[in-house]
């Protein structure tokens, strides 16, 4: 019984570790502190005026900053309603070591008072 339970818990934790995404700041990603090829979350403020859209499809790019360093994020798709220049955003994707971070998901805050937990500390510092 005990063996079975510990086996189940072991399996659970393994599955958990496979599916977590750690949070990083632009400085950390630019310093290659993020594990390459793994799904991570990158959070920061959208630099005003940095959003560039393609003219023929839904691809676009924008810069994220943590007030120390700035990284360019490329994304194809529809931005969330609350994506705004100058406000906080978290993107999810893989770091491929290049200068540009390719995001497959953009998560913006839910209302004007909401902040992703990870970004709250950033703003304080």
């Amino acid at each position, binding site marked *: 019984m005990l063996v079975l339970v510990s086996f189940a818990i072991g399996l659970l934790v393994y599955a958990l570790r496979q599916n977590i995404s750690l949070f990083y700041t632009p400085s950390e990603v630019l310093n290659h502190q993020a594990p390459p090829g793994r799904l991570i979350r990158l959070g920061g403020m959208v630099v005003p005026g940095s959003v560039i859209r393609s003219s023929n499809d839904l691809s676009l790019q924008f810069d994220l900053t943590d007030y120390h360093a700035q990284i360019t994020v490329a994304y194809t798709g529809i*931005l969330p309603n609350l994506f705004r220049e100058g406000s906080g955003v978290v993107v999810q994707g893989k770091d491929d070591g290049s200068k540009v971070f390719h995001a497959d998901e953009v998560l913006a805050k839910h209302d004007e008072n909401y902040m992703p*937990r990870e970004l709250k500390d950033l703003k304080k510092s």
Partner: protein
Amino acid sequence: MIAELGLLALITALIFSLLILALPMMSYFYPACPWQRAIIFYVYAEYFSVLFSYISLMICFLNNDFSVIYVLNNSSTALPFFYKFCAVWGGHEGSMLLWVVILSTWMSLVCRFSRSLDEAFRFKVLMVMAALNIGFILFIIATSNPFLRQFEIIKTLGRDLNPLLQDIGFLFHPPMLYMGYVGFSVAFAFAISSLWQGEMHESWVKWTRPWTLAAWSCLTAGITLGSWWAYRELGWGGFWFWDPVENASFMPWLTGTALIHSMASCEKNAQFRSWTLLMAIMAFSLSLVGAFLVRSGVLTSVHAFAVDPKRGLYILLFLSVVIGGSFLLFAWRGSSLISSELQHQKHPSHHEKKPIKYIFSRESALFLNNLLLVVAMLTILLGTIYPLLIDGLGLGKLSVGAPYFNKLVSPIFILSLMVMGFAVHLRWQGDALFLLIRKLRGYILIAVLGPAVISLYFQSIPSLAVYLGLTSGFWVVLSTAHWVLTKIQEGLKIKQGLYGMVIAHLGVAITMIGIAVSTGFGVQKDLKMAPQDMTVIAGYQVRFMNERPLKGPNYQGTRAEFLVSKAQYQAYVYPEKRLYDIGQMAMTEAAVSMTFFRDIYIAMGEPLSDEAWSVRVYYKPLVRWIWGGGFLIMFGAFIAMTDLRYYSKSLKSLKSLVSVEP
């Protein structure tokens, strides 16, 4: 003035609750004193005080009394009046007040319908519920008073209700959800009282089962409405996001499901008794954790209103007292309950014992069901609190993604449905699974091959999870239908409780089929579209006709017209993009062309250059079945609840509950 009266009424309610708790205690010291009978009166008095307080807050909303801070933050003069009713529970303070109203409602209902119970036990139940009330009212008064006033801002239109919450789905979602959460407090109070008394009455299950079914039915409705609301209002066509707050409502649901099933076997068989008590305690504890942790802002999500360390501390204290206390009580008294059960079994009086011939029986299937549900609950719990633990330990920030939940929880559900299909046929005390499989082999074959036919229809190869999900759904539908038909053919009268079970099981299967088909065969397209552009999705032509400016009571925006057509079929839909005046919050109002079998879902992204918009178009087959199934589950529980056998006073009818099936 009205706000002050509301606060006063809330304080009065607190005093009444304290009296309900104190009077029976007094009678321990003065046993001759007849005071404790008065608590019946106090229960109703408490209820009317709380109701008065709630209505006062509602009147503040209807009067646009912006000197009340809570009204200022959650309403505006332009808000349509029916949303003002929902705005009462649109923020943290008001939703806590709603919680207390519902808790008091359940308490007075229990008081009203428990007259035939043993008096000492009845008072214990009411005392436990009053203690919970005290905890919540104190929390409101000390940390989240909705009646607080301010006098700095006088000329204002109000800060408006969060636009996400301005929706019909939201009208009923929180009250239903709370009815469910709080409804488990009845089973909880009964469990605590039994442990307190040190004995578990034969009639325990009979008494608590309809209450638990009622709570579970409401919770099911609440979750279903929430999912439907998220689908329409969050704008991205998902029905479940594994957001912490969704998990928080799902965990009590899973435990509640385990509870009603273990109650079913408890009636038959004493071994399940202490487990049933544990489930009753867990279901309510998880409701508390859910409602509280989410509200406290520890878990950030749409639903986290405000972060206030004082609240967090109170919540933590309250949770540890209630949950820690009840588990301690269980550990202390639960074992003595078990030993008295064992003695009971040594002298079997009315349960005739048959030698156990088979491993498989209704009991073992119900046990397996409980095990699977609890494992699913623990898996979700781990995924939900893991980021908090890691962050709390200072080991970094992370998030657990939907793949974790999907990968681990889906197999558990598929397995549960497989067991469910067999369980309805299995007899109590033992049955031959081999014979059953032989009897049902035709259906098993259809269930295994059916998904292949569906895949052929959609001309795509589904993933294993989708395929097995469909198989399990088909299997439950077929085997349950077969069971009902044979019963009718044999001329046996099926009791209402079992009809409820059949409907709820079919609901689960339909939800499963809906989830499998809509996720497995749905198509999503994100594109750039200008007026007169056309795209084809799953054989449907979707044409962007035009766009017009839009003016609502408290928002402005753009309304587009799309034509969805396929052969003879034509439908116009009107997705909107709104910008709410106060707060400048943008909102996507998706538009859906729906039939019984599929949705074409269109959501406007954002305006791009030269009249073009980014547009998301979904083809979602059978997506309606997800919520349809949810409502069937709710309806099934409701039918089961009205089974009259629960309400008859004689113990004989309790025995007849046990022998529901020959």
